């Protein structure tokens, strides 16, 4: 090969190119610190909405709602379905280019807010009439961080056929712990277990609430995990597990309570609204009745699950995003979502409407009054995972020891390591 370019200058070219490459890699704008909120763009906004979807029904409903808003407001809104919402959000935040609007799970609000990833627009949407329990769930650092999207609660779901087979009637639906135990015992025979639940805090926690305890105090500033009430709750669950009247879903070869109920290995389970859609899809012939969870020594208690519409602190279109969220959380729009994929509206008016339109699920709606949202401490995720691991082995472990560990780990998180 012959070349007319002198060797020396070729070397120079290569070196300069290399250097330029190295410099752009470091100085490409990705690492500059931006102070305060980013400059807001003017003119029609182009919003990106990142959602974690339960299926086509949900995706299409959100798309339709976003399109309707875009048409009305003259902006554009693109709905992106995440395959792993938490990871994609983490990536977006770290890369400085997060989606404008996104689903935020109630248990992650603390983490996101503490890291300064959320634009706390709560004050702008306060008047929408959200349920108090939801507002409390999404309040971190004294500020409502985002608008609740919808919610679900846990109820006692009963396989109607197995119920009738055991000779039980509607009057036998358990109202308290002793009757729950007695009914579960009656229903347990052969392959059928009286009560099957997932062995995790998100189910077992309901018993803690019914016993008058909870993992943290009311404003979420202190751990109250090893209170006598919580010990009482876990002891009760452990007793039912040992008696064999209650089993974890994994023990009966099911991924979750709904699957066990559908397969007929569980007569009762504790699950949320989503069980309706799942049963319809996988076990269309199974009839299920929903009741409120039986009350414990300190009254009724259930857990509440919810997502909110987070808006990124780094979004350039915050005003448009808030406007979009307002339209998405209107009671009419939320009823559309409820019809499409079975979640409950996050507003008081919406809940009433829901109970009226879906009388068979009124028990879920009733739970909104006294439901407990997830712990939203920043950094609580791994603590919860460790607690779940312990709960899986509740049968062979001491309830007090489990709760002491939870208390210790949680306190470490509150003190910031």
């Amino acid at each position, binding site marked *: 090969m012959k070349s007319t370019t002198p060797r020396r200058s070729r070397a120079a070219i*290569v070196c300069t190119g*290399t250097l330029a490459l*190295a410099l752009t890699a470091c100085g490409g704008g990705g690492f500059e610190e931006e102070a305060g909120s980013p400059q807001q763009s003017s003119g029609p906004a182009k919003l990106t909405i990142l959602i974690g979807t339960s299926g086509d029904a949900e995706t299409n409903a959100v798309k339709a709602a976003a399109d309707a808003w875009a048409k009305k407001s003259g902006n554009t809104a693109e709905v992106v379905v995440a395959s792993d919402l938490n990871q994609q959000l*983490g990536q977006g935040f770290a890369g*400085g280019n997060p989606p404008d609007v996104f689903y935020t799970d109630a248990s992650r609000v603390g983490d*996101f807010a503490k*890291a300064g990833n959320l634009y706390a627009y709560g004050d702008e949407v306060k008047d929408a009439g959200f349920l108090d329990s939801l507002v409390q769930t999404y309040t971190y650092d004294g500020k409502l961080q985002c608008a609740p999207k919808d919610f679900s609660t846990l109820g006692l779901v009963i396989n109607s056929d197995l119920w009738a087979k055991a000779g039980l009637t509607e009057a036998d639906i358990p109202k308290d712990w002793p009757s729950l135990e007695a009914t579960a015992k009656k229903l347990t025979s052969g392959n059928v277990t009286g009560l099957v639940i997932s062995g995790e805090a998100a189910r077992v926690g309901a018993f803690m609430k019914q016993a008058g305890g909870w993992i943290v105090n009311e404003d979420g500033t202190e751990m109250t995990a090893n209170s006598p009430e919580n010990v009482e709750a876990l002891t009760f669950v452990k007793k039912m597990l040992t008696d064999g009247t209650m089993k974890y879903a994994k023990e009966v*070869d099911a991924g979750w309570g709904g699957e066990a109920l559908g397969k007929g290995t569980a007569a009762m389970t504790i699950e949320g609204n989503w069980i309706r859609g799942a049963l319809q899809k996988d076990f269309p012939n199974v009839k299920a009745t929903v009741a409120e969870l039986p009350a414990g020594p300190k009254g009724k208690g259930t857990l509440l699950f919810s997502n909110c519409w987070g808006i990124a602190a780094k979004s350039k279109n915050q005003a448009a995003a808030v406007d979009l969220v307002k339209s998405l959380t209107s009671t009419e729009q939320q009823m559309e979502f409820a019809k499409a994929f079975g979640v409950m509206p996050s507003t008081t008016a919406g809940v009433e409407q829901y109970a009226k339109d879906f009388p068979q699920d009124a028990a879920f709606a009733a739970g909104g009054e006294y439901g407990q949202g997830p712990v939203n401490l920043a950094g609580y995720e791994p603590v919860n995972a460790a607690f779940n691991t312990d709960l899986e*082995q509740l049968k062979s472990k001491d309830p007090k020891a489990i709760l002491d560990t939870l208390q210790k780990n949680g306190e470490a998180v509150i003190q910031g*390591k």
Partner: protein
Amino acid sequence: MTTDVSATRGRVTPGRGSGPRRGGSARGRGRRGDAAAGWLFTAPMIAILGVFLFIPVLMALYVSLTSWNGNGSPFGGGENARFVGLDNYTALFTEDGLTRETFMQSLGNNFWFVLFVVPLQTALAFFLALIVNNRFLRGKGFFRTAFYFPSVTSSIAISVVFIFLFANSGAVNAVLSWFGIDGPAWFSDSRGLFHIVAGAFGVDGTPAFAQAEVFGRTLWEWFAGPSVAMCVVIFLVVWTTTGTFMLMFLAALQDLPEEVDEAALLDGTSGWQKLRHITIPMLKPAFFLVTTLGLIGTWQVFDQIYVMGKGAPANTTLTPAFLSYKQSFTSLDYGTGAAISFVVFALIVAITSFQRWLLRDRDAAPRRRRRGLGLGRPVGSTTSGAAAEAGDRA
């Protein structure tokens, strides 16, 4: 070849004749030119490695010294990325807390994983290589392809298939039930293998001699062995990696000088003796390569874990690589996540050096070792013996 070399030289020192250069100054200049050309040709690769590997590694090292939460730049300081020195590392080793507990458990899990996978995959790969290297095997091509196939299939796809195979009512348990064995609930059984064995001998709970705590875990917990769920991952990894390593052994086997083999035959060695005293010593470099690659690969296991349960049941399939990812992207604690990966890095370097020391050639002169196969004394003595015998016969 020769023309190539002279052409290169000609370019390196332009304006000079291509005749032999003996003068000291000329040679010095030529060397300098050579060096420049060398740097020039490697520059693109150095740049790529630098930009995409070396600089990011240094950046990650810095992140591991901060409490970066993923918001903004990790180099900006401030609330989002405070410099915390070695705090992230001490949290992993000396502070009694959840971080250390999970990290130590993941180390324990991965340790058992490596201890089972590396010997198994090496032995199996060597065995398969011997089979497909057999002169009298028919359909060699078919078997070579069949054994190599798992290695070229996507690990995610295979993991998903394994999830179905090992489901509670899956194919594996169905086959086991033909033999009257009630298969375990593979993916939800968190009991360690050694605990199960101990349980069979009536040892339940923590015996007194295993109460001592090391890094916050009792010895009993450390010596649990891989959980039943982890065993599935072990099967899977052994099965998928064996093919590649078989290929390496096969290449080494085909590289062995045939005369040595023949000489051994003349010596009247049995098949086993030949394998034990000739083939295996001569394959030492191949064994070193396979075990090293195996060790590095097994300490970094990630995708199988991600697909097959993300650490469940009871964190017994959690590995440091996965924990690092989880700590960073789910818990938004990038500092600890980066620290974990550097600890694993140090661990891999340490273990590989140890293994290098273990497999070093003890009795061969350094020069001979460099010549490639590194024939040990047993081989040498056998050949010379065989040669002498052959000489006698002649």
